[in-house]
């Protein structure tokens, strides 16, 4: 890990941890090694031993954390380059927070970096309000002598009112933040954050800060907002985009939403993002159509056109190639002889051949439907299991009343439903995974794992649906606890195997030529 990443991480630590670390500064190392819950990047080796193959390291940041880490970066760059903080901020934003590139390019040719980024570092011309005798504002044409005016370091001077209007328009109406330029035509000097604070109302300024935070996260490859509705946390995860074919970086926000850091979709382990995209698209395009085709049509034995029989007799003539055949047995019509209109030739050789051929071309469709139906089934079940949450809550109350179990002792039920829903999500995506997977010796282990998890999930699901009998509560609790642990461990085994396979390049996926170069 580079020093800068460490710095970044350090700056993200919550204040609690920081205080603790400060106290234990002298015995920092010992402290880190002893504490199991502490996620510390300096302790990489120990961390790796503990971490499962399918898990990634990540941190969740509050808005305050996001603000602080921006400030730290700005101060750092401002010290290194010897420029004022607001200018360091503009430069960092211009370089999309790629500090290393900024510093390198700045050392190379500071003049051109400043020019393209729209920064003038002239300490003698710090923007401030002033009255200028004889000044006429080019925008509002006001020329009062006590007019307050403001100029950025480019020297283009306008009145205070116009500046406020302009900035308010940019921030409030256009949602602009880091690229607000001087009002003069053809001047690319950026209105720095200090000047904006000076010129706008507190309400607009707070909106401006929010927009800046948003772009900070959006511009940063290793940060992503939690996509859950109205959640304000951002997650930091150092898995680059280029690794997404070998890893499924699944993170969990403080709000409990689990999602993929790579694409932002809900947890889709064990399938990689690329496969998920393709599968979702295929299902949107194909699933309903494929279902209907499968149920209502057959294929011409000769040219394989899809034919729907919409009435009439069994004597079919393909509109495309004029092949005549029997709808019932699929054999050529010419061989039906005198038994026309009453097909009893189902088992004869030529009909059998025709059907075999048909079966082969249908197999790929059926194969897709096989996986799709299972995928859709788990999705549906997971929805029903969420309703189970409500039922479970009632059950938990009931348990507290009918037995001497306390509130804390009935929490196992909720935990069981949590695990159940999570396992269903995993199972769901194993079917997309399996659809694209090329079968070989390796895939058998995967299929066994999939089957084991599937069975365990269904058993736990059934158990949770059972009505509660007061005298059997202790037994039920034990059974649910055992099953929950078992289901969880099955999921772990499956994910461990698939993740390991991904990182080793053990899986081969069909239709992803880009993966196997």
């Amino acid at each position, binding site marked *: 890990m580079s020093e800068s990443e460490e710095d970044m991480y350090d700056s993200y630590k919550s204040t609690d941890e920081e205080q603790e670390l400060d106290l234990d500064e002298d015995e920092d190392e010992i402290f880190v090694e002893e504490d199991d819950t502490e996620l510390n990047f300096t302790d990489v080796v120990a961390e790796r031993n503990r971490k499962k193959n399918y898990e990634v390291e990540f941190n969740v940041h509050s808005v305050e954390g996001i603000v602080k880490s921006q400030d730290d970066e700005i101060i750092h760059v401002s010290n290194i380059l010897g420029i004022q903080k607001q200018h360091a901020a503009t430069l960092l934003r211009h370089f999309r927070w790629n500090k290393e590139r900024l510093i390198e390019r700045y050392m190379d040719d500071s003049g051109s970096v400043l020019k393209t980024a729209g920064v003038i570092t002239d300490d003698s011309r710090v923007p401030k309000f002033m009255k200028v005798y004889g000044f006429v504002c*080019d*925008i*509002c*044409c006001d020329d009062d002598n006590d007019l307050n005016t403001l100029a950025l370091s480019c020297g283009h001077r306008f009145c205070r*009112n*116009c500046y406020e*209007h*302009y900035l308010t*328009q*940019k921030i409030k*109406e256009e949602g602009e933040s880091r690229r607000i330029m001087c*009002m*003069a*035509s*053809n*001047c690319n000097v950026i209105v720095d954050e200090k000047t904006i604070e000076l010129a706008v109302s507190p309400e607009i300024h707070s909106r401006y800060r929010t927009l800046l935070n948003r772009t900070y996260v959006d511009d940063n490859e290793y940060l992503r907002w939690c996509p859950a509705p109205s959640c304000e946390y951002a997650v930091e995860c150092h898995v680059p985009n280029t690794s997404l074919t070998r890893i499924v970086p699944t993170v969990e926000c403080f709000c409990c939403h689990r999602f993929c850091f790579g694409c932002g979709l809900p947890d889709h382990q064990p399938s990689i993002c690329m496969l998920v995209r393709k599968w979702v698209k295929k299902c949107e395009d194909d699933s309903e159509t494929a279902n209907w085709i499968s149920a209502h049509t057959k294929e011409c034995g000769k040219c394989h056109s899809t034919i729907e029989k919409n009435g009439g007799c069994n004597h079919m003539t393909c509109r495309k190639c004029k092949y005549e055949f029997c709808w019932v047995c699929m054999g050529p019509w010419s061989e039906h002889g005198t038994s026309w209109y009453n097909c009893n030739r189902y088992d004869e050789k030529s009909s059998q051949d025709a059907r075999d051929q048909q079966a082969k071309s249908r197999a790929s469709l059926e194969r897709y439907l096989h996986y799709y139906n299972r995928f859709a089934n788990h999705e549906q079940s997971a929805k029903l299991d969420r309703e189970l949450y409500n039922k479970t809550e009632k059950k938990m109350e009931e348990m507290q009343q009918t037995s001497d179990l306390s509130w804390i002792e009935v929490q196992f039920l909720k935990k069981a439903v949590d695990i159940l829903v999570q396992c269903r999500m995993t199972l769901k995506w194993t079917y997309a995974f399996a659809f694209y997977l090329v079968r070989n010796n390796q895939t058998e282990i995967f299929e066994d794992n999939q089957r084991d998890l599937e069975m365990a999930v269904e058993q736990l699901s059934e158990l949770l649906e059972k009505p509660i009998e007061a005298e059997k509560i202790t037994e039920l609790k034990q059974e649910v606890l055992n099953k929950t642990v078992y289901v969880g461990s099955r999921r772990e085994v499956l994910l461990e195997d698939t993740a390991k396979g991904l990182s080793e390049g053990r899986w081969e996926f069909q239709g992803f030529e880009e993966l196997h170069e």
Partner: protein
Amino acid sequence: MSMALFTKRLAKELSDLKINPPVGIEIEEAETFKSWKLNLDGVDGTLYAGERFALEFRFSPNYPMESPEVVFVGNIPIHPHIYSNGHICLNVLYNQWSPVLSVRSICLSIQSMLSSCTCKEPPPDNSHYIRTARSSPKLTQWSFHDDSV
């Protein structure tokens, strides 16, 4: 407050245009501060000499912080940056707008755009654009690839 700036500024621009009109530019109609119509004459010695066009300016109350909507109406000039529905591909009307620009400076920019034209032909994607464009050119995502004309 915004109304005050908007009306004050347009009133000033109007009187300037009346007192000191640029060559080949004339106010046709400016009854309200919502929209103005101006006539634009093709400059002598250019491909548009002797032709007269009409420009319509529509102002929002955020003018001049926000650019005006500017389109040709009626007789539309044939020009590689002007679509046959009157929309004009000119950066200062969109992302390069600055509040110091004015009706006068926009008219002059458009006039010079016409004058520097060497070949009277419509934009290459004209037929596609006019089928898909929204009514206001400000809703189009413009890309400005050619600064020479």
